């Protein structure tokens, strides 16, 4: 895994049209992006298509990346995530034998090696940890699975209005917690 600094360099080279740097950038980052996308789409065929789109967008827009705003990988993940969410919302061809839907796994976050935990992430996790357990779970489910409120309501067996209200409340609390 490359460091953010290395990825920033690679991105800068990609912005200048360096195809070789782009290949290295892909090699260094694609498992992470694919993991994020696959978690949302839960199908390899769809996830592959989105991953492809995501990297093409990175290739086109590398010049727009602003290191002051996001870490390079977070920027790339944001691109991939939004594409994946759009794909998840669009009508999809049904899963086939060859491209089955991946069985639901634990919806919570995976484990992160301690040294990879950034200060920002620690702070965010602390704030999420202060939410009520139900809302904690809902928020993580929302982020990692990118379920819309309908889906969340079905999954959590909760009326949709309550889902919406809970989400907003959670976001507000996180907002307050991070600002403090």
């Amino acid at each position, binding site marked *: 895994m490359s460091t953010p600094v290395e990825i*920033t360099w690679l991105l800068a080279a990609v912005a200048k*049209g360096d195809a070789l740097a782009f290949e290295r950038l892909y090699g260094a980052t694609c498992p992470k992006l694919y993991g994020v996308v696959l978690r949302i789409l839960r199908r390899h065929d769809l*996830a592959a298509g989105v991953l492809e789109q995501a990297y093409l967008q990175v290739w086109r827009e590398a*010049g727009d990346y602003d290191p002051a705003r996001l870490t390079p990988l977070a920027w790339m993940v944001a691109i991939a995530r939004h594409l994946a969410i759009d794909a998840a*919302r669009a009508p999809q061809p049904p899963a086939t034998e060859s491209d089955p839907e991946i069985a639901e796994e634990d919806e919570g976050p995976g484990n992160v090696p301690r040294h990879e935990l950034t200060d920002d992430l620690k702070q965010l996790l602390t704030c999420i940890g202060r939410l009520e357990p139900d809302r904690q779970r809902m*928020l993580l489910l929302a982020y990692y699975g990118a379920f819309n409120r309908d889906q969340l309501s079905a999954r959590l067996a909760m009326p949709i209005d309550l889902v919406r209200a809970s989400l907003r409340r959670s976001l507000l609390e996180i907002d307050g917690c991070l600002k403090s």
Partner: protein
Amino acid sequence: MSELDHMDGLAAEYVLGTLDSEEREQARILLEADAAFATKVESWERRFGDLYLMVEPVEPDSAIWPRIKAKMLYARERTGTVEPSIPPPPPPPPGAEPPNLDAIEAVISDAATTLSSEATSTAPEQAPPAPISEVAPTSAAEATSAPASEATPAPVSEVPVSEVPASEATPAPASEGTSVPMTELPPAPTLDATRMSAVEAVPSPPIVAASAESAGQAPSEPRAPSEPQAASEPQAPSELQARTEPPAQPAAPAILSMHRRLRRWRAFAVLMALVVVAVAALLAAWRFAPDRVPAMLQPLELMRQAGVPLPAIPAPRRPAPPESRFDE
């Protein structure tokens, strides 16, 4: 405050991923139109930005990269039609390229942008001056042939000694290149209609270029001037040649490398234009203000340094005999 306001909530949920497609569409329109909303989205992106760290990486199918590679050129080209050739480059990654040449060329190209357009005007499709990012010394000879020889009749071969880094001082005489006027060259084996023709036609006076690149492999200059058409094909750099056969996919790196070569070529066109100007200035100085020319730039001194055999200095003219009728 017990509620996120509507915009804040929309921004946060857009980032979180809980909006349905219409709401996402709405959010995207706002994102374009409303800077305040965009700021909110950005701040939420930052807050949730590192949550991805907790997702287990999954190795994707190895067939994905070739597909991206095949499409990436096209992806850039579409934006490329709007911008000159490459999006505004961010600060270059340290150590990625030799910085010295870059700096030098930046100065040079600044100083001579006007000249460059003049000197390179023979290129069929002149792209606007783009950031010159790298220059390989190998293409030195490439440039010496074209713009210099056409711009002025000045004795170019003599000049590079003073202005150009030593590696380029090869006395690649301009006259050699001039025998093949660029305009007569066929567009060469084109891969891609628009860009390639421009790119190809430029370095394809590679009568000189090719031989310089394949340093010593096949110095084929003798036959070049006589048969420019035949020469341009077999002499095209081998990388390019290889790419002409299998079409779509491998063409991408070929074109990229052509772009790079075009940039190099342009850099040297600029450089040579400077050289030409310097020579012109020197000639003008010799002609109009010989007494102001420093001693080391005096014609005789230069010729001596260049190893030109000097004719025996004629004896100073004796004053005409008093009875001469031709006295001035």
